[in-house]
């Protein structure tokens, strides 16, 4: 297949075919509720660190599902584990554990 060079610029497009299913399954084994996030944004809204630097669990989960684990880690590196997101999540996800799990699973090389 001839590459016409349209791929020169880093893609600003999500490619779901690059999704790492194995790693995601590892994450889901640690914290099954990662699957039921409905991206409502409540966690981001109350985030303590989010006032100062971009910090968002919703974005991190979405980034993982969109095959961009570096962004996921970036979105969580300022987290203070204060627990406000756990208090407000409407789906009852244990967000603190999820944040720790994502960091554990995706920061491994």
């Amino acid at each position, binding site marked *: 297949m001839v590459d016409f060079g349209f791929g020169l610029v880093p893609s600003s497009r999500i490619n779901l075919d690059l999704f790492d299913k194995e790693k995601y399954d590892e994450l889901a084994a640690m914290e099954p509720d990662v699957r039921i996030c409905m991206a409502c944004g409540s966690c981001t809204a109350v985030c*303590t660190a989010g006032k100062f630097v971009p910090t968002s669990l919703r974005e991190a989960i979405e980034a993982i599902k969109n095959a961009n684990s570096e962004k996921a*880690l970036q979105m969580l*590196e*300022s987290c*203070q584990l*204060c627990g*406000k997101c756990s208090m407000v999540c409407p789906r009852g996800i244990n967000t603190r554990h999820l944040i*720790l799990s994502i960091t554990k699973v995706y*920061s491994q090389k």
Partner: protein
Amino acid sequence: MTPLFNLLAAQAEVPEVIDRIPSGFSYFVLPFTIGVAFMFCWIGIGTIRLLAAMPREDRIKFWKSLFIPKTAAKNIKELFCDCLFHVKIWQRKPLLGYMHSAIAFGWFMIIILGHIEVALFVPARLNVTRGGLFYPIFYRYFVWMNPGHTTLRGSFFFFLMDFFLLYILSGIALAVFKRFRSIVLGMRHTTKPSFADRVALYSLWMIFPLRLLAESFTADLSGGSFLTIPVNQFWHFLFGDKLWFMPCWWAYSICLGLFFAAMPFSRYMHILTEVLWILLRNAGIKPNHPRKGVAEAEIYACSSCGLCLDACPMNVQKKNLKFSSVYFIRFLRRHNEKKINAIADKCLMCDKCHALCPVGVDAPALRRAQRATVNNSLPYDYSYLGSVVSKDTVRTAKDTGAAAELRPYSAAAKRGWTRPGSDGCPEGMVSEPIQTYSSNPEVLYFAGCMSHLTPRIIKSVEKIFKAAGVEYAFADRDGGICCGRPLMLAGKTDAAAATIAANKKMIQESGCSTLVLSCPICFKIFKEEYHLEGIKVVHYTQFINELIASGRLNVEKTDRKMVYHDPCELGRGCGVYLEPRAALSQVGTLVKASKEYDESICCGGSLGSLTLDTHDRAKISEASLTSLLDGKPETIVTACPLCLKTFSETVANSGRIAGKVKVKDFAEAISSTL
């Protein structure tokens, strides 16, 4: 026989007691001797390794502590009260305390008394080369009472030995009974013993009945007292003149040997390890790793008694029994990484197990250390903390009443730096009516992350401050950074240190003299880890109580029936039990909960647990609520935003309680009477 008598008669003093066996040895002593020698080697080597693994300063600190009079006195007191008499268990469950102390103290006494007997009557045998190791244990086999030459002293010792043997046997009887009906001894749940535990346990149970058996078989030869002699007569009645006593002594020795051989692999190692642990703990040496160094003494000091399991709030569901401290320690010993992490991550960190452990094992601290081994190395980036500013906590209103000037706190802000895009003034603040106060407020109020989700606390606190004329500044009115304790609880100690440094800077630059916290989680870490020089750190219950007591705040007493819930972090965590109650008594009538003070049950909402799910937490909350409703209060008062939210939701979601009881915050309860 006769020549021996002649020999003896020729002696100046007629001995009361004679060596029946000149060699002072019999093969049956071997199981015991091998077993106990093995055990002593094990513990000797273990202790040496442990001391070697300690950092040098800690070792020196330890040796020194043994000679400091205050510490030495504490050591002796704890060794007697906790190791022998089990006072802590007596206080909670008397029958259980009797059981443990009967076996511990009783056995201790018969060993000591046995050695004294040998020292008094057959002193030559104390020498190790002449059988000193086993002679006192098998005294009644080796000696022969000289009839007609018994003294009061001799009878007294026989009496004491029999008495303590009976004492131990009563304890053993209770122990056996406890395996079938533990609730009679006050334990709803007991620990499941491991295989080595069972070997040691069953042989321990057998040791004393066998001792009674063996000693009673030889009672007509060696002498005895009110217990052994009647039993001896019974044997004669059954079997006639000749008694085969060898099998009994063999059995006794084998049981002893089995017990000591199994001891290092079972929970009973605590008998000796807890001595070491108490000495180390009182020297002020803390473990920093869940397994290595001092922690080794701590985890072997655990006796698997199961009090922690019985008291753990998670045990409302049987399936969560496996997360108790006793199993955590067991798996630590076995290096079972997977289970260790699972248990470490589940704990609510309510500290109840630590509070009632008879040996003072701090299992939550070990769990935090375990979490740190996994979580402390996770990547984080807190560089933004250096540029965080506490905006608008101090304002001076100009005389014209025009828009207030904002003066943020941190040094960076003083240089005129503000966040890009912000004008240093949060939306809407300018048009709000502001109270005027001087530039260095007396009090700095830090609400903490959670309080912003329970705004009635903040509103009530500010109302009280205004009513009492307190000059205060609200450090995190628009939200601040976390105090750092959730990070510490999760084991991220380095990240916590970074947060502490940033907050500390801000607080010290505020120029306040008192720091008031409305959240006990914040209070604990500000008090213990921040080391804020010259600043008094108080919880708002203490501060408000002081305001009432000094007359600065006038409250009205109503006839409302209230019950106070001791938050884990405030009560067991910081020892603050009385001030909240004193203040609340000024505004209403306090009734009792079925479990309060240091026995209060965690609300279930604790940040300490990383993996408990909502369903499990709801069950814990319900149990805690049931305890609080014991005195039929109208209002439940708590002094923690997390407890407040948890109880409010539990009451609202519970059909049968909803509407019947109100849940209020401490400040809310007080301010509503202003």
